């Protein structure tokens, strides 16, 4: 579904991604973990078009999307839930959700998406008229995911959805991700909380200073001593 | 005893420069036209350095700098006229009076408006500038000597190349030393993050006001020099558009970059004049068409200022490195 092939990204002089390659198959949940500053966010930004790779290819459903502007990538069916949630604080919950569907023609299908979001997150229905900026952290995270669902994406990119959330909410969010996945979206998940991430994904990549150093099935990674000590802790 | 040499060195430099400038000035080698332009550039640089302290280092958006320049100019001119002697010490007193008056007014303005943030502060200072313009326009109704809209005349020509140059050097020295001290770091930290600065024990209100006052004092000093260079003051020299000119210079030079301000001030003044000289007669009116084009192009090419973050060597570094 998504193929990243030998991609290089720079911030000015800083070589942030050094020839990264990874692939995500249809219907999968794939995790991308790594230390701070390893370049995880950069990978997602390159995919969704916020950054243009200097070289390399990004293929989505066989189509080259590298270098497309974000709105065009979004129209291909990729929804990116950015780091730090990025809800539109001065818009209501409902308007935020509508923004999610702004690439689609308003109509029955969009209404159905909205119903789906509301039934999955009843809290959002209750708070439809509240300004997003006044939601709690967890609620904002729900809203961000709900907004991404409104685009009816075939692929969702999630950047540290559990950051700053209470343990209870972290659990809820991960549950939500599996549900979204089950409803048909392929997911590329960036996480610091590796154990949680592994628990819902079958495959994972480990990124270190701009390069992929380990990849494989989560079951194998869980037993890898390097991964264990750095990202999982002793279980 | 490292301080004494350091201070002595600086003073010796200034004295040497003064002597050199004095010799040059009196040798008659320089064309008085370019001399006047050069002096204007020095004066502009002093004023722009002041705004750089306010906006570049302290992060306060001021659109009323020319008003303080004007206050300095009128005060200095009035002081020297009132003293009735046209000696060098009297001139120095007049210049200091100009700077002090600008600083005093800045204190009053600062204390009341400095709480405002970014663009709102810009508008409040812009408003102050317009108020001052109205005051200058009608100054003759309370102090006839100031001339009001008809302009103030009969100002002695006291500003010379050594004066302008040495005061520019002195201003640079003072600002450099200030910036590279704990006080300067306090100002810059407020620019970077006011809340964090406060949480670390920096009295943000006081330092913001101080930064504003210091910057305006330099504007006042420059104003005094201007008054005694051109010997004529007119309110239109101190209106909003002149404030914009200084802002343009500071941003072109790069916020918080003294060397850049220096380069941009000289560049701006000399560009204006050089175009006057080099444009063929039938294209004189294109002067002000070219200037904005150059301005836009420069900004597009160097959005963070002409020199980026580099400083000239003598403006770099504090003692602690």
């Amino acid at each position, binding site marked *: 579904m998504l193929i990243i092939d030998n991609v290089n990204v720079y911030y000015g002089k800083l070589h942030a991604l050094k020839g990264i390659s990874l692939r995500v198959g249809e219907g999968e949940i794939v995790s991308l973990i790594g230390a701070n500053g390893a370049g995880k966010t950069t990978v997602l930004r390159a995919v969704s078009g916020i950054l243009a790779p200097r070289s390399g290819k990004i293929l989505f459903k066989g189509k080259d999307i590298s270098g497309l502007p*974000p709105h065009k990538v979004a129209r291909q069916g990729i929804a990116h839930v950015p780091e730090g949630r990025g809800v*539109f604080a001065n818009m209501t919950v409902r308007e935020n959700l509508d923004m999610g569907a702004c690439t689609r023609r308003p109509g029955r299908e969009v209404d159905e998406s909205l119903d789906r979001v509301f039934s999955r997150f009843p809290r959002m229905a209750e708070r439809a008229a509240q300004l997003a900026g006044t939601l709690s952290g967890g609620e904002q995270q729900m809203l961000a995911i709900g907004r991404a669902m409104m685009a009816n994406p075939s692929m969702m990119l999630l950047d540290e959805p559990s950051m700053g959330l209470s343990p209870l909410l972290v659990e809820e969010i991960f549950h939500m991700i599996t549900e979204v996945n089950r409803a048909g979206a392929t997911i590329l998940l960036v996480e610091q909380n590796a154990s949680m991430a592994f628990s819902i994904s079958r495959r994972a990549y480990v990124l270190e200073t701009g390069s992929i150093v380990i990849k494989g099935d989560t079951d194998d990674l869980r037993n890898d001593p390097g991964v264990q000590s750095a990202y999982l802790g002793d279980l | 005893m490292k301080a004494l040499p350091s201070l002595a060195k600086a003073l010796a430099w200034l004295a040497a420069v003064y002597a050199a400038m004095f010799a040059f000035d009196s040798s008659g080698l320089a064309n008085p036209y370019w001399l006047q332009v050069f002096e204007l550039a020095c004066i502009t640089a002093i004023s722009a350095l002041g705004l750089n302290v306010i906006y570049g280092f302290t992060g306060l958006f001021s659109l009323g700098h020319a008003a303080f320049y004007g206050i300095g100019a009128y005060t200095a001119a009035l002081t020297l006229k009132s003293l009735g002697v046209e000696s060098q010490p009297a001139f120095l007193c007049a210049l200091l009076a100009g700077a002090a008056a600008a600083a005093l007014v800045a204190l009053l303005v600062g204390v009341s*408006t400095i709480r405002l*943030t970014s663009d709102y502060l810009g*508008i409040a200072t812009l408003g102050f500038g317009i*108020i001052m*313009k109205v005051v200058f326009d009608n100054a003759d109704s309370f102090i006839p000597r100031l001339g009001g809209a008809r302009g103030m005349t009969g100002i002695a020509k006291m500003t010379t190349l050594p004066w302008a140059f040495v005061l520019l050097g002195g201003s640079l020295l003072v600002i450099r030393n200030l910036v590279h001290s704990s006080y300067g770091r306090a100002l810059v930290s407020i620019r970077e993050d006011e809340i964090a600065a406060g949480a670390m024990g920096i009295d943000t209100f006081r330092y913001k006001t101080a930064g504003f006052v210091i910057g305006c004092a330099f504007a006042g000093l420059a104003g005094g020099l201007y008054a005694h260079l051109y010997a004529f003051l007119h309110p239109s020299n101190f209106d909003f558009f002149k404030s914009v000119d200084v802002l343009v210079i500071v941003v072109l030079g790069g*916020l918080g970059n003294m060397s850049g301000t220096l380069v941009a001030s000289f560049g701006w003044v000399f560009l204006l004049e050089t175009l006057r000289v080099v444009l063929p007669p039938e294209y004189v009116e294109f002067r002000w068409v070219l200037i*904005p084009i150059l301005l836009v192009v420069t900004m*597009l090419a160097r959005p963070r200022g002409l020199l980026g973050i580099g400083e000239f060597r003598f403006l770099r570094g504090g003692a602690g490195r």
Partner: protein
Amino acid sequence: MDYFLQQVINGLQIGFVYALIALGYTMVYGVVGLINFAHGDVFMVGAFIGLYAIGKYHLPLFAVFLLATIGCAVLAVVMERVAYRPLRQAPRIASLITAIGVSLFLEYFTALNQVFGPNFYSFPRPFAVSSWGPGDISLTNIQAIIFLVTLSCLGALQFIVRRTRVGRAMRAVSFDPVTAGLVGVDVNRVISITFGLGAALAGVGGVLYGIAYPQVNTFMGVMPGLKAFTAAVLGGIGSIPGAVLGALIMGQSETLASAYLSSTYRDGIAFVILIGVLLLRPTGILGAAKTEKV
């Protein structure tokens, strides 16, 4: 009493004129955070388009407005492309400086003889002035048109921003352009539309201004632009109703200062009021008090 009411009407007229310009400032500021210093000069171009359309080509009024709106919108979109868009990633002040550059350029370039020329041109009135009103009070048809047009522009803008998809996209871009791109908003297009819309208002304003004060000159946009911008800030920059409110206050304070205090110190008094209001309400009258969440 008549005197007072007449002065209030006078103040409303200039206030509504400021309002039309202020709306453009506020639109652009609200979405891109840029003080578009060249807005007053776009307004000037609008007036000149009106001058040519009426004076030279004798077009009907609605065509004049249409032409001015389109002309100004195109100009603003080009301006944005050339001078602001490349600086989107740069510090905000950089685009403010290019805006100043563009403003100077428009003023001095159009003053060339080859363009509009430096003179004061008299603006032909497309209709005769008539006035109604009891006693000494009079309300002219020009005033009525200005009031109506400004209010309908306000309504239309509010509708666009609050109720349409483009408007929602504008608000999204204003809050976070990157995220807006991620959800599929074409950020560049939205910003172009914003500039175009703001400029279209300036175009309308320019023509109305020409009709009301029948003289145009290439520097005519400077002062109204500055005042309108101040008004937008007074009302709370970024707020559409705020721009109108600020402009009306500005108009009244200028007028009443002239009428009852001193015309000499009028601008001084108006700005003292402005600073006073800002000290009481540091983000303008209707501006959202942005207490930063720490």
